[in-house]
C-alpha cells in the first residue's frame, strides 16, 4: 500500500465498468474508507448548444431530442413548450395529453433501467436481468406508438405527430397490467431482501437540509422528503388536467431512492390509464409560424431524473439566438462528492448511481474565470482557445 502521508487514489473513470458513460471521479481512500472525492466532467461534450444556433427551429427539434438517450422525449417537449410560449401558440388538449402520456411511458422505461443499473452496481445481477427484461414491455409499447424505441420523435412544434387508436390503447393496458405486477414484486424485493437491504439501508443518507442546500432535484430529492416536482409545482402539457400525486420518501438513503422510484412507477401506471380513459378529442397540432417572434423564455419539465430547464432566446428569425439547457444530473452530481466522504469504497458506485447520472446530457462547456466578468465567448474566441489548448498540449 501507499506510504503513510501519501494519498491513495482510486480513479473511477473516464473508462470504468461502473460507468456507462465517461466521467472522471477520484476517490482518496484510507483502506476501504473514502476520505475525499472530486469529479471532473466534460468527456462527452458535443457542442449541441452551439449547433442549435445554426439550425432552424424545426431542425432543432431533432437535434435536441438527441441530448439524452433515455429521456429524449422530455428534452423535445421542454423545447416545444418553450418555443410555443414564444410564438404565442398552445398545443391542442389532445396533443398535450399525448405528450404527457409519452413522458410517463418514458419515465417507466427510465426508472426500470435505473433499477437494473443500480442492482448491478450492488452486484445483484439477477434483479438487473429481470428488470431489464420487463423494461422491454414498455419499450415495445413506445415502439408501437411512435415507431421508435429510444428517440421517439413524438413532438412537433405546436403538437404531436401521431394519434392513439383503440388497438394501441388495449396493448398499453395489457403491458401496464403486466408491469404493475412486476413492479409490486420489485418493491417487495428492494424492501425485504435482507442482503440487498444491507447494501442500501442507511447508505448515502441525504437529509432534508442537505438536499435543499445541494439543490437536488427529481426522485433523488423526493427520497429526502423534498416536495419538488415540476409536474405539480408548475403543471405543463397534460398535467393540468391529469394531476400527479407526489411520491415522497423520508429516510433519504439508497433504499428510499429505490422505493420512491418504484412507487413513482405506480403513479405512472395510474396516470397513463387515466389519460387513456379520458383522452380529449380534437386536433393534434396547432399552426406555428416558421419565424418565432423575438423574445426570451424559460421552460421547465420534470424529466425522469428531475427538473429539466430550458432557456430559449429568439431574435425573430427562423433560427434561435441561444438555447441553454440545464439537465438534472448537473444539480444532483454535487451530492455524490459530498456524500462519498466517510463511506466505504464498495458503497461508492451505489451512491453515484443513486442519483441516476446521465453524463452525456450533462456535459457542456463550463468556463469559470476568476476576476473576469466576461462569461459569453464568441465563436472566434472559442476556436482560438481550442487551437491554443492543443498547441500547448503538444
Amino acid at each position, binding site marked *: *500500500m501507499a506510504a503513510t502521508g501519501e494519498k*491513495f*487514489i*482510486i*480513479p473511477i473513470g473516464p473508462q*470504468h*465498468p*461502473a460507468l456507462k458513460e465517461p466521467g472522471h471521479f477520484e476517490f482518496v*481512500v484510507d*483502506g*476501504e474508507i473514502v476520505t475525499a472525492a472530486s469529479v471532473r466532467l466534460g468527456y462527452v461534450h458535443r457542442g449541441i448548444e452551439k449547433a442549435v444556433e445554426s439550425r432552424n427551429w424545426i431542425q432543432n427539434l431533432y437535434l435536441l431530442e438527441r441530448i439524452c438517450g433515455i429521456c429524449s422525449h422530455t428534452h423535445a417537449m421542454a423545447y416545444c413548450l418553450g418555443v410555443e410560449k414564444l410564438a404565442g401558440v398552445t398545443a391542442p388538449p389532445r396533443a398535450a395529453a399525448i405528450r404527457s402520456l409519452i413522458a410517463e411511458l418514458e419515465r417507466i422505461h427510465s426508472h426500470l433501467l435505473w433499477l437494473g443499473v443500480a*442492482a*448491478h*452496481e*450492488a*452486484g*445483484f*445481477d*439477477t434483479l438487473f*436481468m*429481470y428488470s431489464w*427484461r420487463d423494461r422491454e414491455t414498455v419499450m415495445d409499447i413506445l415502439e408501437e406508438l411512435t415507431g421508435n424505441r429510444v428517440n421517439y420523435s413524438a413532438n412537433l412544434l405546436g403538437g404531436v405527430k401521431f394519434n392513439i387508436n383503440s388497438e394501441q390503447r388495449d396493448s398499453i393496458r395489457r403491458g401496464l397490467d403486466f408491469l404493475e405486477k412486476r413492479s409490486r414484486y420489485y418493491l417487495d424485493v428492494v424492501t425485504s*431482501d435482507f*442482503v*440487498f437491504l*444491507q*447494501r442500501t439501508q442507511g447508505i448515502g443518507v441525504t437529509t432534508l437540509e442537505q438536499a435543499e442546500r445541494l439543490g437536488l432535484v427529481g426522485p433523488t430529492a423526493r427520497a429526502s422528503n423534498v416536495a419538488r416536482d415540476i409536474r405539480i409545482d408548475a403543471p405543463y402539457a397534460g398535467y393540468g388536467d391529469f394531476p400527479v400525486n407526489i411520491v415522497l420518501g423520508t429516510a433519504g438513503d439508497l433504499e428510499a431512492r429505490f422505493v420512491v422510484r418504484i412507487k413513482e412507477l405506480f403513479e405512472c401506471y395510474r396516470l397513463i390509464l387515466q389519460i387513456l380513459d379520458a383522452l380529449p378529442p380534437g386536433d393534434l397540432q396547432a399552426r406555428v409560424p416558421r419565424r418565432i417572434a423575438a423574445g426570451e423564455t424559460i421552460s421547465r419539465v420534470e424529466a425522469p431524473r428531475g427538473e429539466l430547464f430550458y432557456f430559449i432566446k429568439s431574435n425573430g428569425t427562423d433560427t434561435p439566438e441561444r438555447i441553454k439547457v440545464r439537465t438534472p444530473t448537473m444539480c444532483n452530481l454535487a451530492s455524490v462528492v459530498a456524500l462519498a466522504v466517510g463511506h*466505504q*469504497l*464498495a*458503497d*461508492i*458506485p451505489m451512491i453515484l448511481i443513486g442519483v441516476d447520472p446521465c453524463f452525456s446530457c450533462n456535459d457542456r462547456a463550463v468556463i469559470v474565470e476568476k476576476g473576469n466578468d466576461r462569461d459569453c465567448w464568441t465563436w472566434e474566441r472559442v476556436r482560438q482557445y481550442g487551437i491554443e489548448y492543443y498547441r500547448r498540449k503538444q
Partner: protein
Amino acid sequence: MSEMVALLFFPGGLFLLASGLAYEWADRKLVARLQNRIGPRWFQPLADAVKLLAKEEVIPNGVNRFLFVGLPVVALAGALTAAVYVPIGGLNPISSFPGDLIVALYMLSLLTLCTGLAGSNTTDPFSLIGATRTLTQLFSYEVPFLLALLGPALAAGSWQIVQINDFAQNHWMMLFTQPIGFVVALIGLMGKLELPPFNAPEAETEIVAGALTEYSGRGLALFHFGRNVELVVGLTMVAAFYLGGIASPLEFFGKTMFLLLGLSFVQSLMTRLRIDQTVGLWWRYGALLVLAQWLLLILSGGVV
C-alpha cells in the same frame, strides 16, 4: 508409467483441466438460466482459455517480473496437486497417506495466496485494493472452511481423504448430523472461489478485476484454469465428505452437479457482500456455528 499417465492425463492433468472447463461452463450456464439469460455455448470456456493463451502477456512496469510470471504457475500447480489426494471422478486418488486432508487444503489455499501476491506485486490501485480484499477474505473463510471439512474427519476418526470417503459411504447421515458443517463448507468453497456474493475482491463496479486487473494472456488463463480445477476439487471434497461419499464416476457426476446447482442458486439470489460484511459473516456466524457443532461432535463422540 501408469503413475505418469495418471498424473498427466487421467484422472489428473489434462482430464482435470478439461473437467474444470466443463464445470465452469455448467456454472455459467446455470446462473445464466436462473437470471433469465441464454448463457454461453458449451465450448465458450475452452475458447476463452485458448484465446487468452494465444494472446500477448503484457508485463506492466514496476513489477517483479519473476513473481509476475511465476505466481500463476504456482497457483495452477497448487490446485492440480490438491487433486492428487482427492477421489476425482469417483476413482481412487493417485496418492494417499494419513493426513493428506491437511495437505490438500493447504494446496487449495495456494491459489488465493498467489492471487493476493499477484495483486500486491503490481502498482495499480485496483489491484492493490483487490489484493487486500482477497487476503482479508482468505483470513475470514479459511478457518471456518477448514473446521467444516474436519468435522467428517473427526467422525471418521481419520485425516486421510480416502478413509473419510469410505466412512461417508457407510454413514449417509453425515449431511443430517452435521448440517452446519455442510453449509459452511459449501459457502466456504464459494468464498474460496470468489463467487458471488463473495466476489468483493473482484467487484467489477468498484475495482475492475481486482487483484488480477493487470494480468492478461497466459497468466490470466493459468489463474482461470487454477480456479476451475479448484472448483472441481472443492466440489469433490464436499460431496465425498457430506453427501455419502463418492464410489463411482456416476456418483461423482451426480453429486458434484447437485452441489453446483446449489452454488448457482446462491450466486443468483444474493447481492454482493461488502468485504466487512463478508468478514463479519464468517467470524460472527460461520466460525462460531462450526465450533458449536464440533463441541457437540466431541461430546457425543465421548459418550458413544
